[in-house]
């Protein structure tokens, strides 16, 4: 237990130190990421899902097949189907997701900027608008509006996506899924044909 604790401590300390080193070396790169919105997060997530996700699905299927000693290989087979579906979901979900998120963020930023122009309201407080907006502080005001627009718009997008998921995503993902399945089938038949020809 003790050894384990020490190891864990060291691991944490190592991560902490290397992050500190990285930030000290590349502060500009970190600062550039600061304003990232849910759009950036979605793109990063989907890219990982489209590349690592399918491999994970197949891997998990193989592990289950091995651990449970399954003879008919069914889990393995269905995990391949799931892998294609994961990729299709990542592609379709990103296209729809980025559009919906972008629209929600743009709309909320515009609405917040409008609502914040009247001094004394709650929105004006959020935008740090204490009095009149003059040419001097228009930067601070708009910057705050876009910051809040990103987070509030992101939250609204989640609500909107509950509906667009069933209306747009589901059929769209199905189409992509079928296309990928056909492409994968083509590749595997070509491979087996080659094997027959060679053999």
């Amino acid at each position, binding site marked *: 237990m003790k050894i384990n604790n020490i190891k864990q401590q060291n691991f944490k300390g190592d991560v902490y130190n290397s992050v500190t080193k990285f930030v000290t070396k590349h502060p500009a790169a970190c600062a550039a990421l600061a304003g990232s919105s849910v759009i950036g997060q979605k793109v990063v997530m989907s890219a990982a899902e489209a590349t690592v996700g399918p491999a994970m699905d197949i891997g998990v299927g193989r592990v289950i097949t091995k651990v449970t000693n399954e003879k008919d290989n069914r889990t393995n087979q269905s995990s391949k189907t799931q892998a294609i579906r994961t990729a299709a979901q990542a592609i379709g979900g990103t296209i729809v997701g980025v559009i919906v998120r972008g629209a929600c963020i743009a709309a909320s930023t515009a609405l917040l900027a409008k609502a914040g122009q009247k001094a004394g309201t709650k929105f004006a407080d959020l935008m740090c608008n204490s009095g009149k907006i003059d040419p001097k502080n*228009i930067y601070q005001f708009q910057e705050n509006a876009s910051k809040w627009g990103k987070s509030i718009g992101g939250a609204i997008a989640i609500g909107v996506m509950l509906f667009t998921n069933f209306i747009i995503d589901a059929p769209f993902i199905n189409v992509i899924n079928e296309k990928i399945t056909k492409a994968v089938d083509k590749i595997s038949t070509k491979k087996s044909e080659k094997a027959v020809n060679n053999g």
Partner: protein
Amino acid sequence: MAKVVDKLINSLNPNVSSGKTLLVLNALGMAFAALSNTFAAAKDKNTSAEDKKFLIPAGLVTGVANIGIYFGMTKKMIDGFENSAKNAIKNLSDEDIAKKSLEFANKQILKKEKGFLGTGLFKKSPEYIQSMKTNLLKDGKPTEVAKQLFKDNVKSGAGVIAAFIGAIVGSAIITPIIRDVSAYIVQKRIEKQKPHLQEQPYFPYFDPTHVGMGPHGKFDNVVAKKQPLSMKNYMAFTNGRTKI
């Protein structure tokens, strides 16, 4: 409850930590997705009441485990990264900060002048650029506002990196493991109780993505494929279906 709502609203505040805002929004999306999938399972007519008794709690447990692991891990990481960044800023000398914040301010101004990726899209007005310049620069040197902005952004950017790593690990590693393993358990349980289902063609159970597809009616493409009963049939309630 009021405390939770307060915390939620506070975590949406972009001035506190943009990494945490991203984390909360992603976790909320995952929670809604898990709930709507479970709801779809509960409403599905093709599922017997007996199956629902097992499927609904299974769906909820899967969702809670998935979101819980993702949230706990990422929150810790964001805190750690932000602390590291604070330390790193302390390590930088005043000259360094002045130099870097000047570079940063100039880059930001150029970005706003040229618009999104230099395309002119979302370009800001000349008044805005002028106001930005007077706020951030004075006699070719960065103002205190610019220095503070740079420091805040470094800390917040480190949090964003942690949030991104958490999102990648969560969506590409944790979710598939929890989803596939739980789907396997559900599948085995149903097969045990209803062995005849194994010979049946693939039926969409409560899979909303299959409804309405195909030229001849609702389920024709699904039946036409004649897929065997598989993990996939029982995945609708886990986080595999609705993605937010």
